[in-house]
């Protein structure tokens, strides 16, 4: 029901929205909850376990009941708190956790079965009867479990993440937070004011009052205006600070576009990481309920919620409201309601000595002991002494006192301490370094107290920042709190503690009775505090009941651990931008467009995109293209972009010495102008990487690494240099990106190069490097081969890469050659027995690949000593061999002795690379076989259980093509 003239909603801007298939109207500034209350919708949800009818309980993000699904064009978001979701034109929401309609939920049968579903029931299903768990219990529980549903599609919404830095982070914009922001802001410090709601003001918006002689709302407006005008203050509305982390870092979730219909490029949410010199926790307090029989009916709400709906949204959830509260402060709810013309049926106050002077009936020393009304409250039963009487009411506002919102102070393992006077936990000072709690969050409940503690905390922060400021503290009410704790009301019937997870006082007592007496055990046994609200509404009351049941005090019983995040955070926001291709940067070659122009499918190699093969008209499979490209290289000439290989420029008078140290073989003796293949070990003696290094000058080398290990090798060199030989005169830097490098291979390679070079090639022996010119551009030419043919690699500065690639291809094609892709490159190197990281995969020694002789005896190197360890060499090791077969074979298959049993214990080795060789007209593979070198010439059985392959192969020397290397040196 709307109340005229009340609230901060914009009555000139009506908004239409849809809930459970029905259209409703609200106003701009309404939350879904306030708009539904205005439309007199009481039933909004079903509880998790018993599917009890539930209505809105609170007006904040702690809401345990009113969780809905919001349906967007691209998203379906479950567990949205209706008390947080603002209405907008076209909002579509639906209730969740029901089978059938909300009104007639078939799973409400659980409520009648509740004697069998008490706390811990499902742990018991694990135990007996044993066979029932998998067949019956688990499928049923699994189906019933979970809150809300997902669309099953990818979330294609836009999310954002961002980093912010400030001198003072103010968490919460109630009276305390505003005072901090104002004081720190006026000092010139950089301030971030984060407010979870869509308005600043906090409880001042819900409670009203007078500050500095102004109406609270006017004071809030004047502060907002001043803060908005300050360039050093960033006001972040709809931003919940979710966690406190090391070094003054805070996580925060901003609802950027969730209060609007989806629009292009507008993020739904932004996950912030805020680093603050000082942080002030001004999050206020959360009101707690009282456990009495049937206290969960729609229409029973928190008193502060009722007051907020009235004053902030101009709605009341009933026509005859009753208040059940144990503090003086809560009386304001009844007074505000009466002032707005709403009937207050009675005030029920369990305190005998409280004031009875109100404009409505007041029952002191009384308690609510029962309620009626299945889908909405109709009547309550009140007990006063030995008398019981009924009151007709459709809204019961309950207050059991307040719990400071201190969660963030516990995020670094701090524990709150119990305060008897407040009957609440308050933050431990210094629990999070740099974070100070003020106002209600620190147990100071009056408005004056909030302003004064905020002011003082801000002055301390300002002083620590070396700034000065003078701000007057405005006057405000400073009424005492006066609570007499009441946690539960004795009586028949179920009294609910955790509304979201359906935990009753009986469940907590049962937990204690069954031996789960620690608060952490009770939580897990009953699931109290494990719902989306994380126990914000029920924690303290539940442990008070536990304390009572175990005969301990509340302080002794303690609390469970509050962990981040304070409110639910979508994974999409934390991983913003990381979906699909956003997961990692994409690296493109200079030849990328030229390859795509030729229809080459691109394949990812690390972060790089490389052409897989270059299809020609008429070719229907990749194999046809691959076979053709292999033959082309063997018979004419092929061109491939090999720029992805890591290139490291190494200089200094100790450069040779440094290479001797990181490579197993000798580089200091390499003549200038020559290239040598090198093998690099890790410190543990296993192979790290391989590649060629060229000596460009007396003190100048160029190392190449594999594509996969380029970064790894760079890191390794840095480590070795800094850790073992920091005083050597050697400097190195990656030049991978500075050079575009192309392999030109095949019998016509030299002819192709001569057609592009400014001057024809002279005598360039195998494994030499020289400088050449292409169109006046200086280039490096290496005579190296990864294909087994006469091969060269020509490198030009990257900016000329695309031009040279296109030019080489055009010329190659006139010679019967052309480009070749990764598939052909792989077949060529398998034919030649060259290894890649498919072979040197991290568990391989130099001995395994037959390169033990490359470990120089004349010098030490990284990994040399560790490689001598027993178990890393000898006939028990699996050694590199070639495999040859007439039928298709597969990488990943395992090897067995023909005729022997095929099972794990009989495993003789495994296959790392395979390919169809058009050159040898056979399937070839590289494999690691136990004592493999001694078994060359024999046969082995290859079994791939995954692909159903079972083939007898010949065990061969790994070099199939041109074993003498005649072609390489041609």
């Amino acid at each position, binding site marked *: 029901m709307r109340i005229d003239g009340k609230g901060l909603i914009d009555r000139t801007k009506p908004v239409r929205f849809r809930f459970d298939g029905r259209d409703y109207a609200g106003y701009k500034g309404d939350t879904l909850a306030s708009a539904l209350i205005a439309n007199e919708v009481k039933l909004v949800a079903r509880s998790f376990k018993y599917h009890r009818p539930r209505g809105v309980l609170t007006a904040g993000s702690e809401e345990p009941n009113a969780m809905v699904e919001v349906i967007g064009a691209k998203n379906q978001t479950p567990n949205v708190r209706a008390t947080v979701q603002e209405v907008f034109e076209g909002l579509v929401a639906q209730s969740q956790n029901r089978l059938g309609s909300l009104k007639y939920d078939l799973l409400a049968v659980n409520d009648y079965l509740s004697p069998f579903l008490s706390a811990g029931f499902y742990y018991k299903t694990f135990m007996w009867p044993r066979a029932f768990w998998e067949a019956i219990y688990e499928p049923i529980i699994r189906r019933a479990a979970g809150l809300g549903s997902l669309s099953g599609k990818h979330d294609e919404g*836009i999310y954002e993440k*961002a980093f912010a*830095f400030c001198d003072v982070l103010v968490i919460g914009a109630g009276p305390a937070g505003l005072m901090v922001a104002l004081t720190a802001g006026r000092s010139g410090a950089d301030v971030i004011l984060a407010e979870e709601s869509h308005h600043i003001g906090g409880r001042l918006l819900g409670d009203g009052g007078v500050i500095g002689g102004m109406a609270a709302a006017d004071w809030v407006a004047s502060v907002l205006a001043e803060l908005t005008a300050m360039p050093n203050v960033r006001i972040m509305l709809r931003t919940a600070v979710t966690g406190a982390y090391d070094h003054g870092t805070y996580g925060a979730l901003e609802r950027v576009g969730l209060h609007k219909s989806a*629009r292009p490029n507008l993020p739904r949410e932004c996950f912030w990481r805020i680093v603050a010199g000082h942080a002030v926790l001004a999050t206020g307090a959360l009101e707690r309920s009282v456990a009495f029989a049937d206290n969960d009916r729609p229409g029973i709400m928190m008193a502060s919620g009722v007051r907020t709906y009235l004053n902030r949204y101009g709605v009341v959830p009933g026509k005859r409201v009753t208040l059940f509260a144990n503090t003086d402060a809560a009386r304001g709810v009844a007074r505000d309601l009466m002032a707005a013309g709403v009937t207050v049926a009675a005030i029920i106050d369990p305190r005998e000595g409280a004031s009875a002077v109100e404009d409505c009936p007041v029952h002191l020393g009384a308690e609510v002991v029962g309620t009626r009304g299945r889908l909405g409250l109709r009547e309550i039963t009140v007990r006063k002494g030995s008398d019981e009487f009924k009151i007709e009411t459709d809204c019961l506002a309950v207050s059991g006192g307040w719990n400071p919102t201190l969660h963030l102070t516990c995020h670094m393992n701090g524990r709150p301490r119990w305060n008897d006077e407040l009957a609440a936990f308050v933050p431990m000072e210094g629990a999070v370094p740099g974070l100070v709690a003020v106002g209600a969050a620190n147990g100071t409940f009056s408005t004056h107290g909030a302003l004064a503690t905020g002011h003082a905390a801000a002055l301390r922060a300002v002083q620590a920042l070396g700034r000065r400021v003078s701000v007057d503290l405005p006057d405000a009410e400073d009424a005492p709190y006066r609570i007499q704790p009441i946690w539960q009301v004795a009586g028949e019937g179920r009294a609910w503690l955790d509304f979201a997870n359906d935990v009753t006082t009986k469940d907590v007592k049962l937990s204690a009775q069954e031996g789960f007496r620690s608060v952490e055990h009770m939580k897990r046994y009953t699931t109290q505090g494990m719902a989306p609200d994380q126990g914000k509404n029920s924690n303290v009351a539940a442990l008070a009941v536990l304390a009572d049941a175990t005969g301990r005090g509340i302080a002794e019983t303690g609390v469970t651990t509050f962990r981040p995040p304070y409110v639910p955070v979508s994974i999409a926001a934390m991983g913003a931008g990381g979906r699909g291709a956003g997961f990692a940067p994409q*690296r493109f070659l200079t030849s990328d467009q030229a390859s795509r122009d030729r229809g080459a499918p691109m394949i990812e190699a690390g972060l790089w995109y490389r052409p897989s093969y270059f299809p020609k008209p008429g070719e229907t499979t990749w194999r046809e293209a691959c076979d053709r490209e292999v033959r082309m290289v063997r018979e004419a000439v092929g061109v491939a972009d090999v720029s992805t290989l890591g290139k490291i420029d190494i200089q200094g008078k100790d450069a040779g010495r440094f290479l001797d140290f990181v490579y197993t073989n000798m580089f200091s003796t390499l003549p200038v102008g020559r290239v040598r293949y090198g093998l690099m070990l890790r410190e543990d003696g296993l192979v790290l990487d391989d590649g060629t290094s060229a000596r460009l000058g007396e003190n100048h080398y160029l190392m190449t690494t594999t594509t996969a290990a380029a970064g790894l090798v760079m890191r390794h060199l840095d480590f070795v240099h800094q850790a073992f030989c920091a005083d050597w005169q050697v*400097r190195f830097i990656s*030049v991978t990106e*500075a050079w575009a490098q192309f392999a030109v291979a095949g019998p016509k390679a030299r002819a192709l190069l001569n057609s592009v070079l400014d001057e024809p090639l002279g005598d360039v022996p195998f494994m030499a490097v020289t400088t050449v010119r292409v169109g006046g551009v200086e280039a490096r030419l290496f005579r190296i081969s990864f294909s087994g043919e006469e091969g060269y690699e020509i490198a030009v500065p990257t900016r000329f890469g*695309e031009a*040279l690639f296109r030019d080489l291809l055009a010329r190659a094609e006139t010679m019967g050659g052309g480009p070749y892709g990764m598939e052909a490159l792989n077949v060529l190197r398998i034919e030649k027995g060259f290894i890649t990281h498919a072979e040197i995969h991290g568990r391989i020694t130099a001995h395994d690949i037959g390169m033990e002789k490359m470990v120089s005896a004349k010098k030490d190197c990284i990994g040399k000593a560790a490689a001598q360890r027993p178990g890393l060499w000898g006939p028990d090791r699996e050694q590199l061999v070639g495999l040859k077969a007439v039928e298709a074979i597969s990488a990943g298959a395992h090897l067995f002795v023909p005729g022997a049993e095929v099972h794990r214990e009989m495993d003789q080795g495994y296959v790392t690379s395979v390919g169809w060789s058009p050159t040898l007209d056979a399937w070839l593979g590289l494999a690691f076989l136990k004592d493999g070198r001694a078994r060359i010439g024999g046969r082995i059985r290859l079994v791939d259980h995954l692909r159903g392959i079972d083939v007898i192969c010949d065990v061969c020397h790994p070099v199939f093509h041109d074993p003498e290397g005649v072609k390489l040196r041609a």
Partner: protein
Amino acid sequence: MPELIAKSALEGQGPLTLGGVTLAEAVVGQITSIAVFAGKEKAVAKALKPLGLTFPEPNCWSAKGDARIIWTGRDQAFLTGVEPPMIEGAAVTDQTGGWATLSVSGTAAVEALMRLVPLDLRLMAFPVGRAVRAPLNHMNAVLIRTGDYAFDLMVFRSMARTAWHELESAMQALEARAMLKS
């Protein structure tokens, strides 16, 4: 004889202005890395003197005319926009074309960068003249402040398109946020 056409990392990509930020590929000319050998600081200083430059302190850069010298790591700097002099006592390596330079400018430049760079870019913490090696989302970048509202950002050439895309996305979100307020 072929004539090779030089192409920049983002050849053909025009500047983009969105959300109070202008993103453009910058032309910085020649890039040379200079890595000083231990104990050779004086020789390097002498070689740089004719350019009017000194080897930069960590996290700093300076300029003289078109020539800039940018700290890029321990004992290492990039000299840009000028032919490198002969330097005794340092490893000198050509990096031209290996890096793409993006200029990010405008009143909301910091707002765009703070979506991708986890560093304090407030003017007092990161004034003009500062240079850092910093992650740009998942990329390794060199970030320098060239003005109160202007930055130059260097990334590996092969990643230039991703860098552009990520900055563009940040700018689009800023633009959409601005539309929300108006």
